[in-house]
C-alpha cells in the first residue's frame, strides 16, 4: 500500500487511527504492529511472512546477545564476549544474506555468468520484497547497537517488532535507530496538538509527492520517451532538471509523510532531508540528502573502518567502500555502482582540494552543486548503459544520432511546465518550510492545507498508477 493511494487515505488510515486512539495505551504497540503487518501484507501477501520471520530471528539473536547463564563461571566475561560476537555475526549474515538473495543474486550471477561466458549460476528471478533495504538496515543498526552496548537492555518483542515494521517508515524510510523511538515505545501520550501537526505534515508531504513530484515526473517521462540520444542539449538538461526535482519531491514528500504519520502515532521520526539543493558542495549535499542513510553508513561502516583517522590512503579506501555500498544499496545494477563511484570521486577530490573553499563561497558553490547534481541523477535514473552514455553525451552536446527533440519541443515543454518548474524551484529552497513553520497554526493555513489535500486526492483519482520511485530499492 502506498501513502498516496485512496485505499490508504480513506480506508486504512482512518480505521487504524480510530482503533489506535481508542485502545488503552498499553495495547498501542500491539495495534501498531498488527496494523503495520496488515499494511505491508495488503501489498505483499507473501513477503510479509519473510518480514515476520526476519523479525523473529533478529529478536531471538538480540535476546541471545543479552542472555546470561545462571551459574557464574570464572571466565564469564570472555564467554559473554564470544556469545555476543556470535549473535552479531549470525544476525549480520542472516540479514544481509536475505537481502543479497533477493536483491543482488541475479545481478551477481549475471556478472559471473558473463565472465565465465556460460551459465554457471542460475538466475533466481525473485521479486524484490517491498522496503527490504530499509528494514534490513534498521534491524542491523539495532543489532550493532545491542552489540556495542549503546542499548542498555534489549527491547521487548512487541516493541522490537513494532519498531521494525512501523508502517510510516517501513517501506521507504527514514532509517530510524532504536534509541530514537525507544522511550516512546515504552510509553507515549498522544496529544491533540501532535495529531493536528502530524496530519498537517502528512498533507504537506502528500502535496509534495502528488502535486509536484508526480507532475514534474511526466516531463522527464516525456523527454525520455522520445529516447535518450535524440535530445538537443537544452532538452537534455531540462530532462535532467525535471528528474532531479521528481526524485527529490518524491522522496522528500515520502519522508515528510512518514514524519507526519509518526507524529500522529506519538513518535518522533528523524528528518531525512534538509534542503539538499541549496548546498554549496557535494559533501554538503550528502549531509542534507537522505540524512538517515548517510548516518547509517557513517556510523556502521565508515567509522568502524577507521573513518578519516587512519591516514589519507585509508580514508580514500574507506570512502570507496562506503560509496560503492551506497550505490549498490540503491539498486543492483551497474549504473547504481557507477553513480556511487561518481560520488566517491567527487567527494575525494573535494575533500582533498577545493571543498572547503567552495563551502565558503557564496555563489560558485551553489552553481557547482546545481550543475553536478542533475548529471548524477541522470546516471542514477537510466539503468541501460547504452542509453546512459547517449544521454550523458546529449548533456554535453555530443550526438551520435540525429537530434529529434529540439527547439519546437523545448518550447512546448516550457509552455506546458513553466508554472510547475517555478513551483519546484521555489520548493527546493528553504523558504516554503520557513513559511510553513511560521504560519502553520494560523487559520488560513488550515484552508490552504485542506485545498492541498483535496487537490492531491483528485490527482490520485485521475492518475491511477503512481508508484513511488523509491519503492523498489
Amino acid at each position, binding site marked *: 500500500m502506498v501513502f498516496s493511494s*485512496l485505499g490508504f*487515505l*480513506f*480506508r486504512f488510515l*482512518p480505521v487504524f487511527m480510530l482503533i489506535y486512539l481508542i485502545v488503552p495505551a498499553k495495547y498501542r504497540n500491539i495495534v501498531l504492529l498488527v496494523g503495520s503487518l496488515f499494511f505491508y501484507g495488503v501489498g505483499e501477501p507473501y513477503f510479509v511472512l519473510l518480514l515476520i520471520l526476519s523479525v523473529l530471528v533478529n529478536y531471538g539473536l538480540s535476546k541471545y546477545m543479552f542472555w546470561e547463564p545462571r551459574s557464574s563461571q570464572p571466565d564469564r566475561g570472555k564467554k559473554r564476549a564470544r556469545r555476543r560476537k556470535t549473535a552479531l555475526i549470525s544476525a549480520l549474515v542472516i540479514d544481509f544474506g536475505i537481502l543479497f538473495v533477493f536483491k543482488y543474486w541475479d545481478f551477481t550471477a549475471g556478472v559471473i555468468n558473463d565472465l565465465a561466458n556460460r551459465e554457471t549460476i542460475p538466475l533466481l528471478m525473485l521479486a524484490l520484497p517491498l522496503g527490504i533495504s530499509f528494514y534490513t538496515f534498521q534491524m542491523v543498526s539495532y543489532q550493532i547497537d545491542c552489540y556495542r552496548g549503546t542499548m542498555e537492555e534489549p527491547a521487548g518483542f512487541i516493541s522490537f517488532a513494532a519498531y521494525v515494521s512501523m508502517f510510516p517508515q517501513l517501506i521507504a524510510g527514514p532509517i530510524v535507530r532504536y534509541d530514537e523511538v525507544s522511550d516512546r515505545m515504552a510509553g507515549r501520550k498522544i496529544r*491533540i*496538538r501532535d*495529531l*493536528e501537526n502530524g*496530519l*498537517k505534515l502528512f*498533507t504537506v508531504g502528500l502535496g509534495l509527492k502528488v502535486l509536484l513530484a508526480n507532475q514534474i515526473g*511526466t516531463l522527464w*517521462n*516525456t523527454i*525520455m*520517451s*522520445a*529516447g*535518450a540520444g*535524440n535530445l538537443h542539449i537544452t532538452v537534455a538538461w531540462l530532462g535532467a532538471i525535471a528528474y532531479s526535482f521528481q526524485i527529490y519531491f518524491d522522496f522528500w514528500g515520502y519522508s515528510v509523510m512518514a514524519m507526519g504519520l509518526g507524529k500522529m502515532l506519538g513518535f518522533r521520526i528523524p528528518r531525512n532531508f534538509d534542503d539538499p539543493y541549496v548546498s554549496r558542495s557535494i559533501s554538503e549535499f550528502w549531509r542534507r540528502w537522505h540524512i538517515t542513510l548517510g548516518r547509517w553508513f557513517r556510523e556502521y561502516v565508515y567509522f568502524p573502518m577507521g573513518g578519516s583517522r587512519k591516514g589519507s590512503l585509508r580514508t580514500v579506501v574507506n570512502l570507496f567502500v562506503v560509496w560503492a555500498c551506497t550505490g549498490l544499496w540503491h539498486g543492483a545494477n551497474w549504473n547504481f555502482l557507477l553513480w556511487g563511484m561518481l560520488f566517491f570521486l567527487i567527494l575525494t577530490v573535494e575533500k582533498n582540494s577545493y571543498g572547503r573553499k567552495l563551502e565558503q563561497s557564496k555563489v560558485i558553490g551553489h552553481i557547482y552543486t546545481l550543475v553536478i547534481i542533475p548529471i548524477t541523477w541522470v546516471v542514477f535514473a537510466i539503468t541501460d548503459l547504452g542509453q546512459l552514455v547517449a544521454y550523458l553525451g546529449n548533456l554535453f552536446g555530443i550526438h551520435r*544520432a540525429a537530434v*529529434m*527533440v529540439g527547439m*519546437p*519541443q523545448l*518550447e*512546448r515543454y516550457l*509552455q506546458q511546465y513553466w508554472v510547475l518548474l517555478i513551483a519546484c524551484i521555489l520548493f527546493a529552497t528553504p523558504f516554503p518550510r520557513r513559511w510553513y513553520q511560521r504560519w502553520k497554526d494560523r*487559520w488560513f*493555513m*488550515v484552508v490552504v*492545507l*485542506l485545498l492541498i*489535500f*483535496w487537490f492531491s*486526492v483528485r490527482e490520485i*483519482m485521475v492518475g*491511477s*498508477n503512481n508508484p513511488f520511485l523509491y519503492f523498489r530499492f
Partner: protein
Amino acid sequence: MKKKKATAQKKRVKHGQQRKNNAKRAQNSAKQQKKSSAGKIKSSSASQQKKNTVQQKKSNVEQPKKSNAEQPKKSNAGQAKVSAEQLKKSGAEQPKKKATEQSSKSSTSQKHNTKQKQKQGSTEQRKDSEDRKQSSTEQRNSSSVQTKVSAERRRGKPEQKKSEWKEILYNCPYVLGIVFTSLIVMLWSDEIGFKAIAREAQTVMVQSGMIGDSGQTELEKHLLLEEDDELSADKPESEAGNEDVLENNSEIDDKLEENAGKRKDESDDKENDNDLQNDISNEENIENTEGAQGIGKGITKFEIYDPQEIDSIYYSDAGKVALTTEYPYTKENIGYFHDAAFLGDSRTLGISDYAGLEEADFYCDSGMMIFKLLEEKVTYQKTGDKVDLNQVLQEKQYGKIYIMLGMNELGYGNTEMYLEQYRKVLNQIKEWQPQAIIYVMANLHVSREKNNMETEFNNININDKNAASAQLANGTDIFYLDVNPLFTDSDGFLNADLSFDGVHLYAQHYDVWREFLLEHAVEPAEVAEE
C-alpha cells in the same frame, strides 16, 4: 495604573526568569508552592489569614465562572497560584484593596495576561518557598485552607471538562476539517465513499461464499450457471456487436445517401450476407463485421480467442482482436498527407513530433480523450494554439482524417460508452467532412512491464477498446488500421527495446509508423467514384 502595574509585573517576571532561568520548572512545582504558601500564611497574623482565605475563596469562585473556555486546563493550577500570590502579598502587609483589585483583574483579564501572571506568581512563589522552607513543619495548621482550595477545585470540575472539549476543538481545526470533508466526500463519492466500501465488501463476501446458503450443491449450481453464461456469452455478444455495427453503418449510410444516393438496397443485402458470413466465420475463428465482398469495399476481420473473466467496471475481455481492414491499399508518397488531419493523444503527438509529416495538421494533446475531442479545445500543433475542432472541421476540408484515441479512456467509463462516443464523433466528422476518408487507428499496446492486470492498464483493455472502435470501420470511407504487429512481440506486448515507459515509442521508431500509413493509403478518388 493597571498598565503600569502590568509592566512592573513583567519586569519582575523577567527578573525571576533571569534568576531561575526556568519558569517551567517553577510551574511544575506548583504543589510545593501551595505548601509553602500555607507555611507563609502561618507566619502572618491570624486575622489577616482569615481575610485572605475569604479573598482566596472569592477569587477562586469568580474565576472558573468568568474564565471562558479558552483557558486551558492549567488555569486551575494557575488560579491556585494567583491566589497564593495574593496571600503572600497580603502577608507582606500590602493593603487589602490592592489585593482584591488584582484578583478581579486577573479573573477578567485576557488569557495571555493570566498566563503572564501565572508565571510571575510561580516564579515569585518559588523564591518565597525557598525562603520559608523551614516553616513547612507548621503546615498542618493551615490544612483548612488547603481543603477549601481542593473543594473549590472539585466544584469547578464539570465546567472544566467542557472547556477541555472546547480546547480539543480549538486545537485541531485541521483534523476536524479533514474528517468533516472526508465524511462529506465519502457520502457523495462513488469511487472512495461508503458505496464503494459496500461494493467491495460484497464482492469479498461473494468470493468467499459468505452470501447465500453456502451449501456445496448451491455453490456448484452457481458455478455451473456461471459457466453456462460464459458459454452462451460468446455468440450473442458478437451478434449483438454486429447488430450495433450494422445499425451504425446504416446510420452513416443514411447520411451518405443524401450525398451519393442509392445505397439503401445494397446495405440491406449486405445485412443478409453478413449474417451468413458470421456463421461461417465463427467456425473459422475469423469473424467479419462487414461481409460484402464488392470491389473497393474493405473487410474488417477479427481473430477470435477464448476470453478471460475480468472483474472490472471499465472493461471486459472482448475475446477477439481486430485486424487491419482488408482492402487493396495503394502505396503513396509523403505528399499524401498534404490534406490529412491527425486527431489523438500523446502518442499522436509522437507522430507529429517525430514521424516527419510536415504537411499534415495535428490536433492532439496529452491526455486527450474521445469524450473530450469535440467538447474541449485541442492544440493545433503547427501554431501551438488551442482551437475548437468543431469550428476547424467545419471550415477546413480534409482528404483524410486519422484518429487514435483510447489510452486515456482505459480507466474512464466503460467500453460501451467509448464505442458510443466514438460513433458519435465519427458521425459528426462525416457530416462535416463528407469527402474525407477516416482512418481509425488501433491504440498501441503497452509493454509487458507496463501491462498490469490488477489495474485497468493492460492490453486486454486496450484490445477491448480497439475491437470496439474497429466495429465502426465500414470499408468504404472508414478504415481500421492496426499498427501493433509492427511493434509488438508474439504475446502482443510492446517490445521493451522500443520504448522507455512501455507506452510511447522512441522518437526514431515513428518512421516505421509513417511507412505503414503510407502503405495503407486509400485513394479518395476511388471512394468518390463509388
